């Protein structure tokens, strides 16, 4: 076990080289609907139960199913009204269970990235072959169903191994949503490739705000607006990224969806300064235009500590 992952170098937020998003925009905004499948009776993982209550956790399971049969459709229609495309964090097995959802997202030209196979199968305890199998299954299954070669990853239920990021880079993923250290993208120190740490969010993630933090809908909308306003202000100095990770089984509830609409209206009202993008579009621009300047800045400031993630640091 390591005290520090060494996945990225310390890089102070102040005085960074400037990022300007396409069209001269200050903030890159993306929405990540998590389209997940939680199994009725998942196999046991010694590190974590599949459900907080013994299987079958009827309320938990059926609420998530409600998200798939009702909530997603409501969210899609709302995003359509604002002309916003989603970048879908997909439980890959959902392709087999509910292809209608996949077709509806493909028709909207939304992006897909992998969120594992099921959100009830964790990475804990996997060996390298098993973790490769998850990644290869994700690439293959999503390509077959959508025609898209996925470029992003969010580990199932945010469970990782020490080799997760090296494997993603090896399979030519462009970005990971698993790390929360910054409001700008940053290069990760993998053995190969160009894997970007893409700002996702726990702070404005509806699972956290509605679950752990027990916010009411209008409080959540207020947090979203404040978060957006601050990151937009700072984006003038150097382009920032804001993601709203969503779960339809929470945000699309009839008592909540209007408050979320209100927040989206606020954000959509700043179109002159905001690049409405997908995660892969942001990652592509970053890799092509800003990766090298970031690495050079870290180097020039004497902050490059060497080594790669979970490997030994060089002196």
């Amino acid at each position, binding site marked *: 076990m390591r005290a*520090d992952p060494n996945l990225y170098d*310390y890089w102070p937020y102040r005085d960074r080289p400037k990022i300007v998003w396409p069209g001269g925009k200050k903030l890159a905004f993306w929405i990540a609907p998590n389209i997940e499948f939680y199994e009725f009776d998942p196999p046991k993982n010694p590190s974590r139960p599949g459900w907080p209550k013994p299987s079958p956790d009827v309320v938990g399971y059926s609420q998530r199913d409600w998200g798939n049969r009702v909530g997603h459709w409501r969210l899609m229609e709302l995003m359509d009204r604002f002309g916003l495309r989603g970048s879908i964090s997909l439980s890959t097995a959902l392709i087999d269970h509910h292809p209608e959802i996949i077709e509806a997202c493909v028709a909207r030209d939304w992006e897909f990235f992998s969120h594992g196979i099921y959100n009830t199968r964790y990475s804990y305890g996997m060996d390298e072959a098993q973790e490769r199998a998850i990644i290869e299954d994700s690439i293959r299954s999503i390509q077959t169903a959508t025609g898209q070669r996925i470029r992003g990853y969010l580990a199932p239920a*945010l469970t990782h191994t020490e080799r997760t990021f090296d494997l993603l880079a090896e399979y030519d993923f462009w970005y990971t949503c698993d790390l929360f250290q910054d409001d700008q993208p940053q290069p990760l120190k993998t053995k190969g490739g160009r894997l970007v740490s893409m700002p996702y969010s726990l702070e404005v993630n509806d699972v956290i705000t509605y679950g752990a933090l027990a916010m009411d809908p209008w409080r959540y909308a207020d947090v979203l607006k*404040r978060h957006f306003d601050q990151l937009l202000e700072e984006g003038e100095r150097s382009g920032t990224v804001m993601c709203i990770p969503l779960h339809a089984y929470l945000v699309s509830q009839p008592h909540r969806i209007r408050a979320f609409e209100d927040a989206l209206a606020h954000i959509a009202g700043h179109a002159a300064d905001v690049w409405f993008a997908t995660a892969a579009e942001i990652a592509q621009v970053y890799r092509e235009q800003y990766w090298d300047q970031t690495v050079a800045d870290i180097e020039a*400031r004497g902050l490059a*500590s060497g080594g790669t993630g979970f490997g030994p640091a060089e002196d």
Partner: protein
Amino acid sequence: MPMPDDYLEYPHRAYGMDQSLYGWRPATARPRIAWPGGQSVLGVIVVPIEHHMLDPSGKPFKHPGAMVTPYPDLRHYTTRDYGARVGVFRILDALKHEGLKATFPVNAVLLPRLEPLIEAILEDGHEVAAYGVDTDHIHWGGLDRETEKAWIEEAKAAFAKVGLSPRTWMSPARQQSFSTLELLAAAGFEVCLDWEADEVPLPMTTPAGPILSLPVSNELDDRTLLNDRRQTEDQWADQVVAAQAYLSGDAERFGGRMLGFTLTPYVAGQPFRIASLRRMLAGLAGASGFTAATAGEAADLFARSARG
């Protein structure tokens, strides 16, 4: 089985405190403090810079903010790390905008990695304080004296290595052993931010000499209010401003007061909290009779006031 006989013996049952670190003195009997600038309230703003490692032992208890899920808990590691790379710079900017000085206790292990942050803190005229080795080196009653002494020396040496000799100490999790204050005084520390027994600076005595306690409010702790108790950023900001206003009124009657509170970077430095943080700091800076000082400055001002 009943409790042993001595369980009903009370060796310290007498007037005053049941320890020798400081004496009993009700607020009504305190000598008036006259801050040299004539201020009613001296603010000590504490910005803790913490290292939350991926593999904490969690002994003797988990430090607030420690890892939660099985190794590698990258989710919490990176969420905490956000504070020292992003959030703290928002706090620095907000402090600078209002011309307020603060104290930044830093876990010693972070010093080499955070060199640019340390420079930014010092450049803005703030104080860097010692904050133990890291969040997994908690000083507590079960720690043997030699180990604790070695930890304090280890922290001191790490600061010396980057050219710093902090006067002020805050313990990880603000926890201590029965010997901590003595060992800190012996190591040359003059100010401690762990205790909050009064609303004014409180001189403490140890076998190794004196050390000054500056109160830092646990009930206004941002991590507690915002993360644990889930209050809104406006509720939090309002309470800090209200505390200042109340103390200001009290100061007219009883002399100068102190208001110590924390701004934890990974908590207070979140984008959606910055508008409230700015409003809070503007409210403090704009209040008549309020001034903020670093811990070391507060100790000096207190010494001047005590001399008359």
